[in-house]
C-alpha cells in the first residue's frame, strides 16, 4: 500500500507540472510555478526509495528515487522554487501566461530527467526539458536574447542527435537500457568507443562545457536573471548528470578518453578563470564561474575514467556536487539579478536576425547567382540548341498533318494500293 502511494507520488511529481502547463487547467490557480514543484518537494522530503514502472510508456520505462536522485531532486526543487519566485515578480508581463507554460513544461522535463532510470527516459525528458527551456529562455526577449536562444537551440539539436546515436548504439548492444546495465554492457564491445565519444560530445554540448560554452555565456549575457538562474540548474546540471549516468565509470579504464575529458576540464578551468579576470562584469560572473566549476567536474570525471579504482572513492560525491552546483549558481544569479534589477539592459542594435533556413537559402542563392553569371554563355548556347531540338518533333508533326500524308487523298490511295500489294506479297 505504502509502496503504491510512493509510486503514485512519483508519477504525480511528473504529471502534475505537465497538467498545469495546460493554460486552461491552471487559469484559476495562483502561483502555478510554486504549485507545480510542490509534489516534487514533498517527495524529496518523504523518506524512502521507491520506483514506478510504466511498462506501456515507450518501450517500457521506469522512474525511481533513491539516495543519489534525492540530491538532484532536492536541487531541482530549490532551483525551481527560486525561479518561480523570481518569475513571479514579472507577472505584469503580457507574456506571463505563455512563459508560465514553458516554465512548467521545462520543470516537468527536468523532474523527469532526474527520476528516469534508463537512457530512453532520460533522453525523452531531456528533450522536453531542452526545447521548453528554449521557449522559456527567449520568451519576450530582445534580439540578443533570441540570438542566444538560437545558439542554444543549435547546440541542443546537435547534442540530441548525437545522444540519439549513442542511444541507438546502446540499444543495439543491450536490450535493457537502464543506466547500470548499459554501463556494464557498453564496455568492451565494438561500438564502445563510438558510444563514449557520442555521449561525451552530446553532453558537452548540452551542458555548455568548454569548447561548447558559447551558448551558455551568451545566454547569461542576455537572458533576464529570473530565467538565467535556471541555466545552471537545468541544462548544465542535467548535462553533467547525464554524463555521470551514461558513461561507464568505474568499470574499465579508458585512458585516451579519460585524458581527453581531463584536458577538457583543465581547459575549461583555464578559460573560465581567464574570462573571469579579463571580462568580469557583474552579470557575467555566474557564467565564468560555472564554466570553471564544470571544468573541475570534468577533470574529476576524466580522472575517474582513467583510474576506475579512484572513481569508487569519490563516486558518492558526484550527485551532491551537481546539486550544490545548481543551487549555488541559481542563488548567485538570483542575487546578482536582484542587485541589477533597477538597471535596464542596454539595447543592442544588432542586425536583424533571420531564420536559419532563409540564411542558408541566401548562401545557396548567392552561389547559384554567381554560377549562373559565369555559366550564362554556356547556358544560352545550350538553350538555343535545345529549342532547335524541340522544334524537330513539332515539325515532323506539322509535316505529317494534311498536305503530304493525311489529307492528300491522292497520296492516301497510293498508300492503299501499296498496302494491298504489300499484303499480297507478304502473304506469299
Amino acid at each position, binding site marked *: 500500500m505504502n509502496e503504491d502511494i510512493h509510486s503514485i507520488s512519483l508519477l504525480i511529481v511528473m504529471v502534475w507540472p505537465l497538467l498545469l502547463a495546460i493554460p486552461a487547467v491552471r487559469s484559476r490557480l495562483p502561483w502555478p510555478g510554486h504549485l507545480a514543484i510542490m509534489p516534487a518537494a514533498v517527495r524529496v522530503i518523504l523518506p524512502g526509495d521507491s520506483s514506478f514502472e510504466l511498462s506501456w510508456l515507450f518501450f517500457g520505462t521506469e522512474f525511481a528515487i533513491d539516495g543519489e536522485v534525492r540530491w538532484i531532486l532536492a536541487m531541482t526543487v530549490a532551483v525551481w522554487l527560486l525561479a518561480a519566485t523570481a518569475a513571479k515578480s514579472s507577472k505584469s508581463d503580457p507574456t506571463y501566461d505563455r512563459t508560465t507554460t514553458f516554465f512548467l513544461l521545462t520543470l516537468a522535463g527536468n523532474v523527469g530527467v532526474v527520476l528516469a532510470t534508463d537512457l530512453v527516459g532520460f533522453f525523452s525528458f531531456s528533450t522536453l526539458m531542452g526545447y521548453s527551456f528554449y521557449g522559456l529562455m527567449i520568451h519576450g526577449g530582445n534580439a540578443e536574447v533570441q540570438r542566444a536562444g538560437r545558439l542554444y537551440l543549435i547546440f541542443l539539436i546537435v547534442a540530441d542527435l548525437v545522444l540519439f546515436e549513442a542511444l541507438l548504439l546502446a540499444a543495439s548492444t543491450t536490450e535493457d537500457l537502464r543506466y547500470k546495465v548499459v554501463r556494464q554492457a557498453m564496455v568492451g564491445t565494438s561500438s564502445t568507443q563510438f558510444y563514449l565519444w557520442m555521449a561525451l560530445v552530446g553532453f558537452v554540448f548540452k551542458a555548455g562545457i568548454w569548447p561548447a560554452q558559447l551558448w551558455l555565456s551568451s545566454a547569461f549575457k542576455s537572458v533576464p536573471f529570473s530565467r538565467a538562474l535556471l541555466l545552471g540548474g537545468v541544462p548544465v546540471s542535467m548535462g553533467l548528470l547525464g554524463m555521470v549516468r551514461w558513461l561507464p565509470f568505474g568499470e574499465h579504464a579508458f585512458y585516451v578518453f579519460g585524458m581527453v575529458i581531463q584536458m577538457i576540464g583543465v581547459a575549461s578551468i583555464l578559460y573560465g578563470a581567464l574570462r573571469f579576470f579579463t571580462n568580469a562584469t557583474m552579470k557575467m560572473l555566474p557564467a565564468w564561474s560555472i564554466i570553471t566549476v564544470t571544468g573541475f567536474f570534468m577533470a574529476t570525471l576524466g580522472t575517474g575514467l582513467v583510474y576506475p579504482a579512484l572513481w569508487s572513492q569519490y563516486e558518492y560525491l558526484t550527485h551532491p556536487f551537481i546539486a550544490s552546483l545548481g543551487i549555488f549558481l541559481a542563488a548567485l544569479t538570483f542575487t546578482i539579478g536582484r542587485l541589477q534589477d533597477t538597471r535596464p539592459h542596454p539595447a543592442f542594435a544588432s542586425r536583424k536576425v533571420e531564420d536559419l533556413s532563409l540564411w542558408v537559402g541566401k548562401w545557396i542563392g548567392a552561389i547559384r547567382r554567381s554560377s549562373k553569371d559565369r555559366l550564362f554563355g554556356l547556358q544560352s548556347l545550350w538553350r538555343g540548341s535545345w529549342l532547335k531540338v524541340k522544334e524537330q518533333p513539332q515539325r515532323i508533326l506539322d509535316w505529317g498533318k494534311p498536305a503530304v500524308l493525311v489529307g492528300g487523298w491522292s497520296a492516301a490511295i497510293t498508300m492503299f494500293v501499296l498496302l494491298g500489294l504489300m499484303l499480297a506479297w*507478304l502473304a506469299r
Partner: protein
Amino acid sequence: MGTVITKIPWGVLLILLPLMGGMACFLWPRIAKILGLVLTFVGVLSVVGLGWQIMSNGVYHHAVGGWGAPLGINLYADGLSLLMLAITALVGFGISVYSSGYFERQHSTRFWPLWLLVLAALNALFLSNDIFNLYVTLEVMGLAAVALAALTGSRDALSGAMRYLLANLLGSLSYLFGVALLYHGFGSVDITTLAVQVKGSPTTWAALGLIGAGLVLKTALFPLHFWLPPAHASAPAPVSALLSALVVKASFYILLRLWLEIFGPLGGDVDTLFGVLGAVAVLWGSLQALRQTRLKLLVAYSTVAQIGYLFLAFPLAMSAGVMAWNAAVYLALSHALAKAAMFLATGNMLRFGGHDRIADLDRVVQRLPLTATAFALAGVSIMGLPPSGGFIGKWLLLEVALAQGQWGLVVIIVLGGLLAAGYVFKVLGQAFTQAAVMHESRAVPASMEWAALLLAFGAILLGFLATPVLSLVGIGSPFGAHEVMP
C-alpha cells in the same frame, strides 16, 4: 419457357426487326422515335435470347432460303458474333436513347430510318457467313453511315462524309475484287466452305491483299485513317458514336473472321505488317489526338489510336492465338462502349456550350456532372486503367506480348496508354477550370446525359466481367484450339 426461347429464331429477328423498323420509320415519321427506341430495346432482348440459344444449343446456324452453303447463304453465330451483336445492341440502345433527345424534328425524321437500317446491316454483318453477303451488308452500312455523317449539312460534315464515302467505296470495291478472286479460285463464297478449300496460291494471296487492304481502309488503320477524323468529328454526336463504336468494328470483325477462318494459316508476314501499322497507329493517333484543340477531333483521333491496338493482336496471335484474339476482342468491345460514351458526352458538351474548343470548356464538371463523369469513365477505359474493359484488354495483350518477349509491342502498348491519358486529361483538366470568356449555355436533356453515362459505366463494368465474357467468346471456339502459352 426455356424451350420457347430457344426456338424463336432470334438471329433472324435481329436483322428483320430493325429492317422493318427502318422502313416503318420512313413511312411514318411521326412514330419514328418511339419505334426506334422500342426496336433497339427489343434488339437487346433478342441478343439475350440469341445468347441463351447459343449457350444451350451451341453455335447458331440458319440456312437462308433453306438451301445452305455453298448455293445459298448461311447465317452463323458463335461466341464472337454474339459478343459483337451484344455490344451493337447495347451501344445501339444507348445511341437511341441519346438520339431521342438529341435531334430536332427535322433531323429526327431523317435520322431514325437510316439509323435502324445501319443497325440492321450491322446485325446482318455479324451474323453472315458469306463473303459476298458481307459485301452487301457493308454497303448498306456504309452508305447509311455516310448519309448519317452528312446529316447536319455543314461544310465540315459534307466534306467529311464525302471523304468517308469515297474511302468506303474504294474499300468495298477492293473487297469485292478479292471476293471475286476467291469465288473464282475456289468456287464458293461461304466462309466455312472456303476455309476448307483455300490453299496458298497466287489467287489467295491477291485476294488477301485486296480484301485486307479494303478492310483495313474501312477500319481506318494507319496510314489509311485519313478519312476517319473529319468524318467522325463533324457528324452529329450519336452518329459519331455509332461510327466510332460500331461501324469501324464491323469491318474489323470481317477481317478478323476471314483471318481466323481463311487467311490466318496462309498469312505469311502480313500479321507482322498489321502489327507494325497498328503500333504506328497507336502512336500517331495518340499524338494527333494530343495536338487537337477541338474535342471531337481529339476523340476521333483517339479512335485511330485505339484501332491500332486491335491490330497489335495479329502478330501476337501467331503463337498465342486464343489469348491474343481474346485481347483484341476485349479491346474492341470496351472501345465500343467507351468511345460511344465519349462521343455522346462530347455531344452533350457541344450542345451545352455551343462549341467544342477544349480550352473553353468552362467548368463542365460543375455544370454537366453526369456528362463529365461519363467522359471520365470512358477515358479510364480508353487509357486502359483498371478497373475497366480497356484494362482487361490491355492486360491480356501485355501478357501475351511479354510472354513472347515482343518488347517493341510492350513499349507501344504502355506508351499508347500514357498518351491516351495525356489526351483524356487534357480535356478533363480544362473541364474543371473556368474559361476566360463566359459562354451561353443550352440545357441538355437528361436522357442524353444518362445515355452517355450508362455506356461509360458499361465500359467500366466490362472490367469485372472478363471471365463470363471470355467464356462466351469461346463458344464455337472461333479462335481455334491453339494452346495458350503459360
